[in-house]
């Protein structure tokens, strides 16, 4: 068996703020298997986006890695150097964000955006061949009338079409890892459905790994092979998508699933998770979820739980789950 494309071991990331260091990721270990679509779920402040920025080393200036290691295709970040990171960001990792307008230059045509990506990947290709490939890719991601629209600008496209253009750019880079950070969150459910169908179709042609970040459990359940659940900067549970959504073991994941799915009775009460996400300037000593957990025992407040296998087939960081 070949090693995973991305191996994260005991990673810690902190942001320096006026109030002190915010420990956004703590002791995070995970693998992204080659060719898999891996879902990363969690609520605001769970560390999803920090992890998305840590993988291509795009963390902002006030962030620092406090410990642990990331290996990409077997090479440790510690041994990579700035040139290695450039190669990583420019060629091996592509990203699609929630708001495509932040990634598309408003005064540069779609043709130039796509042409630049192709030229970087295949410097030997002529202008005509670049154009042919750009049109073929736009057509593939479902932009109608691709040849005519190639000369257009970002503002001339709808939100769904812009997201298709972002996906086209990402795929033309032929990356090993595609990081999609909430790519369907701003879209209508009908358009989200079209994008999910597109991503599922594309995976047959795209050999790389996809890290799909979302707060929507349903979206992740429908698209992903594997799922990683983050809570307050730590991994709460991981597992194959089918097992995790059918037999979640971590009390946080169980509560989250009930919040999203439970149909209220005649009293109309909807479920929520009482309490707040802990302040990550001074994270709780034991399990991060213990202050809100309905089944917490004394050990949960003193000892950090490690990921361990559960009967349901998932791995959870919980002292209580079996």
């Amino acid at each position: 068996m070949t090693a995973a494309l991305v191996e994260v071991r005991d990673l810690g990331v902190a942001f320096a703020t006026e109030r002190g260091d915010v420990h956004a990721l703590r002791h995070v270990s995970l693998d992204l298997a080659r060719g898999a679509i891996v879902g990363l779920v969690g609520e605001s402040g769970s560390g999803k986006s920090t992890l998305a920025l840590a993988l291509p080393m795009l963390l902002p200036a006030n962030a620092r890695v406090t410990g642990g290691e990331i290996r990409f295709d077997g090479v440790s970040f510690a041994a990579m150097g700035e040139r290695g990171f450039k190669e990583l960001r420019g060629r091996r990792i592509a990203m699609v964000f929630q708001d495509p307008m932040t990634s598309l230059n408003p005064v540069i045509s779609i043709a130039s955006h796509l042409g630049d990506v192709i030229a970087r990947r295949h410097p030997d290709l002529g202008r005509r061949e670049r154009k042919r490939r750009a049109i073929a890719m736009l057509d593939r991601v479902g932009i109608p009338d691709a040849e005519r629209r190639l000369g257009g600008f970002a503002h001339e496209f709808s939100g769904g079409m812009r997201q298709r253009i972002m996906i086209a750019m990402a795929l033309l880079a032929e990356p090993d890892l595609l990081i999609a950070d909430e790519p369907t969150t701003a879209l209508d459910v009908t358009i989200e459905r079209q994008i999910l169908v597109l991503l599922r179709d594309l995976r047959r042609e795209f050999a790389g790994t996809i890290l799909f970040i979302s707060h929507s459990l349903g979206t992740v359940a429908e698209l992903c092979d594997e799922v990683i659940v983050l809570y307050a900067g730590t991994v709460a549970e991981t597992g194959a998508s089918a097992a995790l959504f059918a037999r979640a073991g971590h009390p946080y994941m169980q509560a989250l699933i009930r919040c999203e799915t439970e149909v209220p009775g005649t009293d109309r009460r909807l479920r929520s998770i009482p309490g707040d996400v802990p302040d990550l300037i001074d994270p709780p000593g034991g399990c991060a979820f213990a202050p809100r957990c309905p089944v917490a025992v004394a050990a949960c407040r003193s000892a950090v739980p490690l990921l361990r296998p559960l009967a349901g087939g998932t791995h959870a960081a919980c002292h209580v789950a079996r």
Partner: protein
Amino acid sequence: MTVRPIVAIDRVSVAYGDLVVVHEVSLDIAAGETVGLVGESGSGKTSLGKAITMLKDTIDGTIAFEGEDVRALVASDRLAFRRRVQMIFQDPVSSLSPRLKIRSLLAEPIEVHGLPFEATWRQIEALMADVGLSAQHLDKYPHELSGGQARRVALLRSLVLAPRFIVCDEPTAGLDVSVQGDLLNLLCDLQITRGLTYLIISHNLNVIRRVTDTVAVMYLGQIVEVGETATLFARPAHPYTASLIAAIPTIDPDRRRSPIVLAGEIPSPRKPPTGCRFHPRCPSAQARCRTEAPARRDAGPGRSVACHFPVA
């Protein structure tokens, strides 16, 4: 005997310049009811909400509130109408002035409406606990609050005026699933204790399904289906409603039927399709749909559908 609706919308159209975004829409809302208004971006949901609250003029049709024409109500006493009918906007942080502390933001409606300050402020203090805010929030600025707290401030600003009817535009947009339930439960409690009627505008069908009594589905400026919530979700009649419901991503593999994937996107209202406006995207469109616009017809108790070939 039918009860007179608290809001009666009769063939209302709304336009921005010559762009008609709401086209001859009719809808009755019963007192004490929660009605959900759903549809894709660009369907005219928010414009209809603004028309009901008279934040946007209509170009045609009438809207009656408790039996009286809203234009006449606004003309005779604008502030009195504003006290009875309120709208809470999506993105509460940006709808609250960033330079005012919460204390001033809460005092603002008292001053605007010329209410007795001391007595009204005491009401606000009493209400704060009900909506889940405490005195420590008073000296904060909007950007220092979480999304859920900012929504509670916006809600409190409305409640102090003792409204009868509130339009809530995307009340849970951007909120985490774990706190959405709290906010929706709060809306539900306030409805009972304060006798409120709600129109909830949302593209989140999971929320609409769980908190509304009735749902109205909009497509390109028109209401295409209205029905009791549970019935409509179980047996949608309009192909558009059916495809919206089928598109909801679900974690339950048993409910994951092969979804109807709607082709294309909602067209511009500048040049709406002929006949049924949905026909270019409709999986069951026939020749008649291209030429003849379907009227909305009764289809059982509380149910109406605008479709030549309903699917249920």
